[in-house]
């Protein structure tokens, strides 16, 4: 909000700035009110709640930073952060990697639209439905679970994908990747179309092989969409809740909990809204540098 009058102050429309400040204020007011009511106020409320016991969502007693202290002493919360890091590395990495691969390969075949449509299809499924479908796929009973039925066909032992601590996070991340790869494919495929064919032809004429073209030309030229994707996916991961909630409820034990799930448990299961608000503030703090990076990236690229 505060940044809005900035271009005016920089001198391009000095007359407007000097003579009609009230008009500016009036035009900004509706947006400002909406932002205050729906963004600023809730953030301040959450900050206030995070230093309160907050039983049942009310301000009951100010406890200072106790909520934060107990948060970082809680092994479950540390586990949730580690799991979120796993998600960031593997989910974001695989979605972008697979997305780029499919986009590049699909561009070279005639039935590109069909491939992209198939890959994009999971995006049309609600995350909760996606989780329920995959819950069936992962069932330990081979007569129900597709994956174990396939393993059984090759005479392998049935695995409990969601009941084994060492498999559960990989299983959940796979669901996330399956659901989001289509998104990355479509974005990157559009970016690839934007690369001028002259550049590619020139490179070929100069004797570059296809791998060199991929690494030296294609990847650098789509680096902006890749970074935008990376930021979007990372933000999605930090907000991630539905897949673990539906598929494992954070279990077995607490091995597949993520930060947002922890917030839900603290607030709505335990009635400890002070603790839950502290988790929310930690999430916000993690988000800030990512958003700052994103905004700066957009600004610089807009100038260029």
């Amino acid at each position, binding site marked *: *909000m*505060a*940044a*809005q*009058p*900035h271009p005016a*102050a920089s001198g391009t429309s000095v007359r407007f700035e000097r003579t009609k*400040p009230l008009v500016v*204020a009036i035009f900004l007011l509706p947006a*400002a009110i909406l932002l*205050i009511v729906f963004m*600023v*106020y809730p953030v*301040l*409320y959450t900050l*206030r709640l995070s230093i309160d*016991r907050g*039983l*049942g*969502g*009310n*301000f009951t007693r100010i406890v200072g930073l106790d909520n934060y202290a107990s948060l970082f002493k809680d*092994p*479950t919360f540390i586990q949730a952060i580690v799991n979120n890091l796993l998600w960031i590395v593997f989910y974001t990495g695989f979605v972008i990697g697979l997305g780029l691969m499919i986009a590049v390969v699909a561009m070279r075949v005639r039935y590109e639209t069909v491939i992209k449509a198939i890959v994009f299809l999971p995006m049309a499924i609600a995350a909760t439905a996606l989780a329920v479908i995959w819950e069936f796929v*992962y*069932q*330990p*009973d081979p*007569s*129900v679970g597709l994956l174990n039925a396939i393993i059984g066909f090759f005479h392998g032992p*049935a*695995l*409990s*994908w*969601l*009941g*084994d*601590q060492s498999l559960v996070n990989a299983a959940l991340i796979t669901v996330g990747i399956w659901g989001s790869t289509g998104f990355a494919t479509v974005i990157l495929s559009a970016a690839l179309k934007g690369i001028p064919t002259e550049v590619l032809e020139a490179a070929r004429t100069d004797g570059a092989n296809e791998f060199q073209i991929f690494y030296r030309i294609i990847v650098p030229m789509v680096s902006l969409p890749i970074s935008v994707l990376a930021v979007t996916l990372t933000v999605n991961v930090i907000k991630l809740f539905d897949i673990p909630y539906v598929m*494992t*409820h*954070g*279990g*077995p*034990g*607490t091995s597949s909990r993520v930060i947002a799930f922890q917030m839900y*448990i603290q*607030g*709505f*299961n*335990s*009635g*400890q809204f002070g603790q839950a608000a502290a988790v929310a503030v930690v999430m916000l703090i993690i988000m800030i540098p990512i958003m700052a990076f994103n905004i700066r990236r957009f600004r610089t690229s807009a100038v260029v």
Partner: protein
Amino acid sequence: MNRSLRVLSLFMTTALVLAACSSGTATNAPAESAAASAGASAAESAAAGSPAAGGSITVTSLWGGSEQDAFQKVLDGFQAATGITATYQAQRTDYATVLQTKITSGSPPDVAIMPGLGFLRQFARSGGLKKVSDLGIDPASLAANYPPGILDPGMVDGELYGIMVKFNSKSTVWYRPDVFTKDTISVPKTWDEFKAALDALQAKGEKTPLALGAKDAWTLTDWFEEVYLRQAGPDAYKKLFSADGDWTDPTVATAINAMKEVLNEKYVTGGIKGALGTSFTDGIAEAFSATPKAVVYFEGGFVGGIATGQTNTALKPGETIDWFDFPSFASGAGTGAAEIGGDEIAALTTNPGVKEFIQYMTTADAGTIWAKTGAIISPVKAVAADAYPTDLAKKEAAQVAGATAVVYDGSDTLPAAAPDMGAMLQNAIQGQDLTGLLSTFNDGVKAAWAGEK
């Protein structure tokens, strides 16, 4: 630049003022609701002149579907008996949070039926609930309606706030009688006989006779509670699930180790990891579907309705599905005791009709109407055994009526803020170090109890 800063600071100030206002409302809420109830009592005295018939109250709980239909019959009975209309409001998700919000905003429902005692205590202490005595009902007059122990869970700090209106036994081990008969295995009464029966089933070709749906972690809390109740006895059980409970006491580890004598790779269908990936209802299906892989499944009395109604409608109670008492321990102090899980009714207002409704819910009439639907077991003593529509329900009611002691579901008794007991047990049956698990859990539970005060 300067102006934008000034504008920003204006926004900030406004937001802070707003925040301050809202915290003001929160603290004012009790006063408001007091004013509201004062208004209500004025209305009551105004209404006192007119006949008692008529009036209406709202009742909220989290049932939907067939459970709601069954409860509606009770509400209809109430209207027939008193002329007061009770309207049911279902709140299926985030029950406690929504209820808290309604209390805070000064417009609570008149009566709430709530699962779990942590929230009952929380609402009672925050002033959201009315004492039974506040309604003009003498708690002592109710005691005779119930078997001993039934009213205890509704007490908060020595005062009666909630009254149990329905329950299920948790001391029921479900099994397939036809397989037991075929393999000439008799129903086990003791823990040793239970293990022997599992061995015998294995010897007869049932590779993994014991189904377990441990993906829903609460099934493990019930396992623990049953074993602990029978080993350590009802007094130790009540102490463990109170503020004085000590989870590092050796009896706790003993009970978990006993659980692991049967909950292990040898007996459990799909192994421990498989069970941790199997939900409660899938566990029922492992034992009672048309193509069963197990013979025995432990969970509360509600398994019967799910198994015969949803899992496999071809099941015949007594022939292909039945239950026996959770086995007792040779040196245990809790032989013959029963554990129950139930819902408590509590008043949130003293509006006209609320007293009548709470009183009606303690009568055999209400209990009988509800019992006849087959949806519940009634804690009211005077509800006749033949009120229950099925043999399984009759047997369940008789088990609790004849128990040497009745205790309430322990994990539902712990403070809402306590760490997840089921998750702790999921870790325990995977073989994690018990000393460390229990010491961490103990710290969390102690802190949660202290935080309730």
